[in-house]
C-alpha cells in the first residue's frame, strides 16, 4: 500500500494505492485501472467509468491534467514529504 497526498486548488486529497487494482481516496475505496496510451495520454477506468486524460508533468511531482475539458493543477507528496511540508 502506497500513500500519497494530492493538492488540487488548495484542497488536499488522501490517496492510498493497493496492488490489487483498488485505490482509496479520502477514505472511499474504488477500483482503478490505468492504461498508458502514450507518454502524456492515459485511460483511467475509475469505478465503472472510463476517463481519457492528458497529463503534463510540470515538475517531478507537479502535474497538469486535462479531463473532460477541465484543467487540474496537482501536486503529489508522499506521507513523509507531506509531513515535512507541514513542518516547513
Amino acid at each position: 500500500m502506497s500513500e500519497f497526498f494530492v493538492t488540487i486548488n488548495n484542497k488536499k486529497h488522501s490517496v492510498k494505492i493497493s496492488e490489487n487494482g483498488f485505490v482509496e481516496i479520502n477514505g472511499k475505496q474504488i477500483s482503478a485501472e490505468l492504461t498508458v496510451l502514450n507518454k502524456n495520454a492515459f485511460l483511467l477506468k475509475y469505478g465503472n467509468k472510463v476517463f481519457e486524460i492528458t497529463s503534463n508533468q510540470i515538475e517531478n511531482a507537479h502535474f497538469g491534467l486535462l479531463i473532460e475539458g477541465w484543467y487540474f493543477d496537482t501536486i503529489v507528496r508522499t506521507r513523509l514529504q507531506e509531513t515535512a511540508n507541514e513542518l516547513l
Partner: protein
Amino acid sequence: MLNSNKLFNKILITNRGEIAVRIIKACRELGIVSAAIYSEADKNSLHVRTADEAHLIGKPPANESYLNKQKIIELAKKINADAIHPGYGFLSENSDFIEMVEKSGLVFIGPSSKSVKMMGQKTAARRLMKYHNVPIVPGTIKPVKSIEDGKIIASEIGYPIMIKASAGGGGKGMRKVFSEDEFESSFQRAQNEALKAFENPEVYIEKLIQQPKHIEVQILADKHGNYRHLFERECSVQRRHQKVIEEAPSIFVDESTRNKITAAAINAAKACEYFNAGTIEFLMDKNKNFYFLEMNTRLQVEHPVTELITGIDIVKQQIKIAAGYKIDFAQDELKINGHAIECRIYAEDVDNNFVPSTGKITHHRLPSGPGIRVDRGIDLMSEVPIYYDPMLAKVSAWGQIRNEALERIKTALSVYQIGGVITNIPVFNWVLNQEVFLDGSFDINFLDEQFLPLVPDKWKDQASIQLEEVAAVLSALLKKSSTEFVTTKNTISCNNKWRCSDDE
C-alpha cells in the same frame, strides 16, 4: 478564366480558421485548387498548411490582412484565381468589397452586392420584408430621429421595447427598455454604441418579444430563380447574443409552423433577389408567432447541423451556384433526417469573464465515433493568436433522434482534449444537462439568466468534484509509477500490475 470541365480552376479563400479549412475541403472534393491567405500571426495555421497554396497578405491586425480589400483583389488576380470565397465574418457581408470583386471580373461566392446592401440596413430590410408580407416585429421601419419622437413611438407600441442600431448586428447598439423613465439614457447609449461599432448612429424601435426563441431558416438560391429551403435551425443558446449551441431541426417547431416559416424565408430571399446560400433569422414567441430579425447574407458558422440532417453540402452548393449552375434537387426531394447538434469550442477562460485564452496548442486529441463531426481550425502546435475570434473548432453530432445526438455530443465533448489553452468545453457539460435544455423550453435568455449568474465557480457541479478525485488518483498513480515505469525511446513498459499499452 473558367475551365469548361471544372466549376472554377482556383478559388481564393479570404478567411482563416475552421471555415477556411472547411472551404478547402470542398474545393478539394470538386477538383478546384484552393488558395489561402494568411497574416503573419497565422503562418503556421492549419488552413495555411491544408491549402494547395497559401499567400501572406499582411500583418496580424485584421484591417492589415483579412480586411484589406484592395490587396486581396490584387492577389486574386496575380495568382489567377477565378473566384473568391469569403467564408463568414471579415469581408463576407461587406457590400463595397463584393462590388469591387464584381467589377474586377472575379466571381464572388455569395450573393450580389445589391442583395447584401438591401439586407444590410436593418430598417431598410424591415421595410422590404413588410412590403413582401414577411412578418416583422411591431415597430418602426425608419430610423427614429429624436428622443421625443422615440418616446411617442414607444408609448404607442407599448413597453417593453428594444432600441436597435439600424446598421447593427451581434447585439451591438441594442438596448431593452422597460419604461419611459429609462428611455432617454438607453436611446443615447444605443446611439453611441451604434456610432462606435458601425460608424452610423441611427437606431430604430421594436416591441420587445418576451422569452423568444431564435429560429433561422437556411436557404439556397441559384442565379436562375430557383429557391430552396433547407429547413430550420434553432440557435437560442446564446451568451450575450453570440450563439454557443445550435441544433436542427428545432424541437419547438411543428410541421405547420415549419411550413409557414420556411415559406416566409423564401419570400424574404426573393424580396432581395437573392442567390447563393443565406439565412433568414426569426424570433419566435411562445405561441409560435415568428418575426423577421435579419438576413445573414453568407455562409453561417452553424451550417454543419443543416448539412447533417439534409445530406446537402452547402459549401459545394455555394461554389456551384456561383459558377452559374442550377440547383440540382427539388424542394420535395429534401427531407429532415434525424437530429443534429453543434457546440462551438472557444479558447476562453469562462471563470475569468470569458477572456480569450491564447497560446500554443500543446495537445490535441479528437473525438470520433458514429455521427460525430469536427470542423476545426487547429491541430497540434497551432498558435491561438490574440488578433482574431478565438473559436477553435465546432463539434457536431448527428443522431436518429435528439436524445441520440445529445448523448453522442456529450461523449464526444468528454473525450475532446485540447491542451495549452483554456477552453469552454466544461460549459457544455452544464448546459447539456439542464432540464430546460433537455425539454427544449429554453429561450434566448437561458444562458444570460441561468448560467452567467453562476460564474465563476458556482456552475461547477458534482461532476467536476468527481473529476477532481479522478485527477488526484491519476496524479498519485503517475507519481507511484514514475519510480516503477521503465521508459525506453519508443515504448513504455511497467513492472507492476497497472496495464500498459502504446496505441499511438
